[in-house]
């Protein structure tokens, strides 16, 4: 080989060794897990099957990586809630204020990046997005930071949201072609929610879509006045999903503000608590489905809108499914938002049926009252941020759910309430893993975890006929996704705190799980 050719080969292999090939973003995740959800669909289903229902008894720990960051402000016990990316043998993962790159084969730290925040909530960080050789990390106080994936050096930082206004930023950015999609959190101070796209090279703003209309625009009729829209909440704090064929970005929006006190925002409060479809090139709204019109229970509708194709009444359909925090399971036609299924998967007596669009109709008597309202659902709702999964081989949607009863109080009774304006309290709850038939919303099987407490683990399904998730008792558990039978478990020092992910490297399948402050890699023995 001539020196020049050798140099070019070497350079390109070096580039490949670090950068993310954009083609990987639209392929099933096998040797690469390039986004928070593994691919754009949000299914968290892997076609890998080296780890399978026949060899789970030999599944064992290959390595562990503990993050020694100690307590963070307001957070005594740090939890890894991020789903790592895996690109070219390197895992990238986060906790608030920190990013790591570790060797996917050994867990050895390659570099770490640390941020000194000036406020914001350190409740969690979901991970990073990647474009070529660049990572995109959100610091809690509203900074979007681009890092060099090769060495963790900062390339640029841009302030996108003001922590003094109680915005905070925790999500894993979603990269679509040359758009870095960024969402925000924060509902303590009645600020408007938004989603925006940034240029991956420069960080320049490409578009910003507000979750509330401006006066005079479509949707403004669902608010009483300009002030209520300007302070209407609707945060965008979990990664959405994307259909490259339809070129539609799907996102769930958070609860309206003031949170529990709805008297100053009478109306359905579009586009809070909604599933929205946007054009990722322009940020223009294409369709919406409002999961909770005029929410007064703090039930963000940010849970992953999971995309898959299915058959409904004999017809092939492009579908979107969501287990919403308000206790409803929705299946929509993702081309237009038309309802296919809208039915509760846990108690949901806050609603009195659904309207013609399939949107639940709130029962006004179940809004928070000064002397308390008793609801048949946990205060946190039916589920929360932990990622669900859809297994195309079983046709079932899996969610870690909670059943429960709760009390809601209205506290700020003034005409112009502020912030939360009320409170909620769970009386009793039970965690239940549910497998739901996407065609009907019927529960195929459910597994109630003994005892109280909340299972907050994400779910991974695989072609190996195994589903992985965790309980609230520190067990990593493998299920038969079809029957709900437990096949295997492993007791960890902390409960599974992220969405498990998997990839293949050097002919070996790795299962990666975050539990508390430690990342664990599991493998099965392979023939030499």
């Amino acid at each position: 080989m001539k020196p020049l050719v050798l140099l070019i080969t070497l350079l390109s292999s070096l580039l490949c060794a670090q950068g993310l090939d954009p083609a990987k973003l639209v392929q099933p995740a096998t040797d690469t897990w390039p986004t928070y959800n593994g691919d754009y669909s949000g299914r968290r289903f892997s076609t890998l099957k080296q780890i399978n229902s026949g060899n789970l008894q030999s599944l064992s720990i290959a390595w562990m990586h503990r993050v020694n960051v100690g307590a963070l402000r307001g957070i005594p016990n740090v939890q890894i809630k991020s789903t790592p990316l895996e690109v070219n043998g390197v895992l990238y993962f986060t906790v608030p204020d920190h990013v790591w790159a570790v060797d996917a084969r050994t867990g050895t730290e390659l570099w770490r990046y640390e941020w000194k925040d000036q406020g914001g909530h350190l409740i969690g960080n979901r991970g990073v997005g990647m474009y070529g050789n660049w990572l995109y990390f959100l610091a809690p106080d509203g900074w979007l930071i681009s890092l060099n994936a090769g060495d963790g050096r900062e390339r640029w930082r841009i302030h996108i949201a003001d922590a003094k206004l109680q915005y905070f930023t925790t999500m894993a950015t979603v990269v679509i072609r040359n758009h870095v999609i960024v969402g925000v959190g924060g509902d303590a101070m009645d600020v408007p929610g938004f989603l925006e796209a940034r240029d991956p090279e420069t960080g320049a703003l490409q578009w910003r879509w507000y979750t509330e209309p401006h006066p005079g625009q479509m949707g403004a009729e669902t608010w009483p006045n300009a002030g209520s829209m300007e302070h209407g909440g609707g945060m965008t704090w979990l990664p959405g999903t994307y259909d490259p064929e339809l070129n539609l970005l799907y996102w769930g929006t958070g609860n309206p503000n003031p949170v529990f006190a709805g008297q100053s925002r009478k109306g359905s409060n579009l586009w809070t608590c909604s599933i929205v479809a946007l054009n990722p090139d322009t940020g223009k709204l294409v369709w919406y489905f409002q999961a909770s019109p005029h929410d007064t229970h703090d039930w963000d509708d940010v849970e992953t809108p999971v995309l898959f194709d299915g058959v409904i009444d004999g017809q092939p359909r492009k579908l979107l499914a969501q287990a919403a925090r308000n206790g409803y399971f929705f299946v929509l036609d993702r081309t237009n938002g038309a309802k296919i299924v809208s039915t509760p998967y846990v108690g949901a007596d806050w609603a009195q049926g659904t309207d013609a669009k399939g949107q639940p109709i709130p029962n006004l008597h179940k809004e928070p009252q000064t002397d308390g309202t008793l609801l048949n659902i946990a205060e946190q709702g039916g589920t929360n941020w932990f990622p669900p999964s859809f297994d195309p081989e079983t046709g079932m949607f899996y969610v870690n759910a909670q059943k429960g009863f709760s009390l809601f109080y209205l506290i700020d009774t003034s005409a112009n309430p502020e912030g939360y304006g009320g409170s909620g309290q769970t009386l009793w709850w039970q965690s239940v893993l549910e497998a739901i038939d996407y065609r009907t919303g019927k529960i195929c099987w459910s597994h109630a975890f003994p005892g109280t407490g909340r299972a907050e683990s994400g779910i991974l399904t695989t072609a190996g006929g195994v589903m992985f998730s965790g309980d609230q008792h520190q067990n990593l558990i493998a299920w038969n996704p079809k029957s709900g039978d437990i096949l295997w478990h492993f007791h960890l020092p902390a409960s599974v705190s992220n969405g498990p992910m998997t990839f293949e490297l050097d002919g070996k399948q790795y299962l990666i799980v975050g539990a508390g402050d430690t990342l664990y890699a599991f493998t099965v023995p392979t023939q030499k």
Partner: protein
Amino acid sequence: MKALIGLGLLFAIAAFPQAGQSQRDSSLDRRLQRGREFLGLGAPPDAAAAARGQKLFATSCSFCHGANATGAEGPNLVRSSLVLHDEKGETIGPVIQHGRPDKGMPAFANFTPEQLYDIAEFLHDRVYQAVNRYGYQIGNIVTGNPAAGQAFLAQHCETCHSASGDLAHIGSKYQPADLQALFLYPGTQLHLPISVDIETANGRHIDGTLVSQDDFTIVLKETSGRISSWQTDQIKFQLSDPLAPHLQLLPQYTDADMHNILAYLVTLK
């Protein structure tokens, strides 16, 4: 959007049966501090200055901005970006002193620097009261019909409870909000032991109380005091939860039932 962590503290009015006022205050202080840290609010406002500032605000500012600074003819100052970025009056003060003639706000040139600081602290305190939800206080919740509550208890609860027995004086032991959560599901505040009866593979019975349980293992404190751990697939076991009747009732209450029962229980002084 809600913090998953800290939930136990969030609005949960901790039960302090027969607690003195100072204990209650220190519990509130702890919650507020927890909220400050979690929400990234920094140091709390200067309460003495805020109290002085409130009087100045009432006299000079409330006509336009409302008594609570949430706006009237003038803007809501609690949500004001300028207020939220101010630390100790350094940006609020000059606006008060010079006014905003273009927006119709007159100048208040006679305030001393100390008074401007006091007004700024009053505004910061208003922000703090709104933002730090860990300090929210539930209002008056005793609205029901005591006679109807008494009738409900007679019908559903007298197998286990009586007004002259275990429920005597319960209305003076608990604040109403605590009492409401307590009677609906006592497990929110009391840890009543769950009885366990284990039958081992060779037919031996072991009694005790539940320490912990998951899908694979059950840990109990045996009657002898010994703590033992058992694989659930190797034994048979039965749990007896004293709160099971409360769980069975939870789906049956209407909100009116709940209010009526509370109204009756608070009369049991």
